[in-house]
């Protein structure tokens, strides 16, 4: 299972994420339809974004699946985050008041 704190990047858009809560499902984490790779790793330049997976990611937002996996977007991009072909959903956080 991928380690909490691991940073991943998309091969087909600008999206970067950090793993906040790992789960087995993240082994098949994709952005824009293509598997995400460790930051600084080689991107396969022959890959292109899947148009059906291009709703985009939002900077600073957290995305979750239904098995408890959670990633934080540290750089926004055009691709959709998904596990296989199932898109992750945006985690709606109840905002806390500024406390420090």
């Amino acid at each position: 299972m991928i380690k909490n704190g691991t940073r991943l990047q998309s091969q087909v858009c600008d999206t970067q994420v950090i793993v906040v809560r790992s789960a087995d499902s993240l082994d098949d984490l994709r952005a824009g339809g293509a598997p995400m790779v460790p930051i600084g790793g080689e991107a396969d330049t022959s890959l292109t974004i899947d148009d059906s997976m291009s709703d985009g990611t939002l900077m600073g937002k957290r995305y979750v699946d239904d098995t408890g996996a959670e990633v934080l977007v540290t750089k926004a991009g055009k691709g959709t985050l998904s596990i296989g072909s199932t898109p992750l959903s945006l985690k709606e956080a109840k905002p806390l008041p500024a406390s420090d």
Partner: protein
Amino acid sequence: MSISLLLEMAQEAASADPGRTAVVDDDIRLTTEELSTLADGGAGVIAASDARHVAYVGTGGAMLPLLLFASARAAVPVTPLNYRLSADGLRALLDRLPDPLVVVDDEYRDAVGEGYRTIGSAEFLESARTAEPAAEFADPDAVGVVLFTSGTTSKPKAVELTHANLTSYITGTVEFASAEPGDAALICVPPYHIAGVSAALSNLYAGRKMVYLRHFDADKWVQLVLDEGVTSATVVPTMLDRIVTVLESRDITLPRLRTLAYGGSKVALPLVRRALELFPDVGFVNAYGLTETSSTIAVLTPDDHRDALAADDPAAARRLGSVGRPVPGIEVEIRREDGTVCGAGEPGELFVRGEQVSGKYTDIGSVLDEQGWFPTKDVAFLDEQGYLFIGGRSDDTIIRGGENIAPAEIEDVLVEHPHVRECAVVGADDPEWGQIIVAVVVPRSGTEPDIEDLRSYVRSQLRGSRTPDRVVFRHELPTNATGKVLRRDLVDELNAQTKEPA
């Protein structure tokens, strides 16, 4: 995740409005980009020194975020130290850090002395502007910040906070770039306190301008709130008391202030009520946390304050004195001495668990249990709705004739007496009972409280065993800079008096 990623993300968000000020500290004004450039250069200065640790002795301001991020980018831990310590006290702590580079404000150079590798704060800032930048990315499990506990009850302990502890607190409790344009936070907590560290990270991450006040003064605080359009601030109880006193005596309103958070130590309810009355449009936040938990673990929100204040039901009204409910990512458990879990309303020791919880000390190691729970040593209970009530440190528990008595229970009653301004209840040595209950009272100005009246006031509301055996008066209570009452000092004073021949 390294805390430097928080700065990278803030930079990304700030790129939409590159001229926006991120840090204000007297004459220093920095944008996020400028802070980042200085942090890169500062990392270069640290890396070139080959130091294994960075220590900071000074009053903070912009130096704090700068050193936090510069150290992170050099992948070296940083420790802001209490600049109010004596030279001996300071050196005793510096000696416990591995081969530190000591960054020091000029006025504390003599206190630090010649025994360490030192660089003046101004010189560090100057060098950071021109140094060859360094940009490492610290391992998430590496220690990012080491803070010494205040040591009010024992020798200061060095708490190790990892990058993962700190960043999970920030990303778990702060919504990224959620601040409105023009939002500004006034930061007057000291740099060596966990609240100072978390304020530097959370406000940057939220995109809120950070306005520093290095030396707290209530008049200056009010002036800065007005001048810088401050929308949120965090204060410790003694600061809140002084701010309320200043504003009550002058006809000033703070129209832009939206939230005022208080914490650091317990705030007496009469003061909370005065503050709520004085600022009807401000949202009050009571934040409870420990150094070992990377700051806040429970929050009483503005809505909670309003609901409790308006409540007729005693259980709901009582929540004004609670620290609210745990933040996301924190689990809490109240345990009896035998380790079993307490029911609602039953006091025991507070245990907490979550990624922001370190529970690890240099030279001691981790004190987490096998399931990852941290013993806070705070006496607490949860009510039916999950609101957390803190009853003080378990070390402060008075044992009188075999009965355990939490001082907070008596203090909460006594401080409501119209003649009491402040009070602390402590246990003094006694040949018959082991310890006796002594109430140390600071009278409200213009009053002369009657000892028997105070004792019967407590007796009318609590069990007889809670009645103070003695009441003594003082002009003020001894406290540290963040308002924690130095109970040990009071106990020592009382014990010394009783040992003197009559």
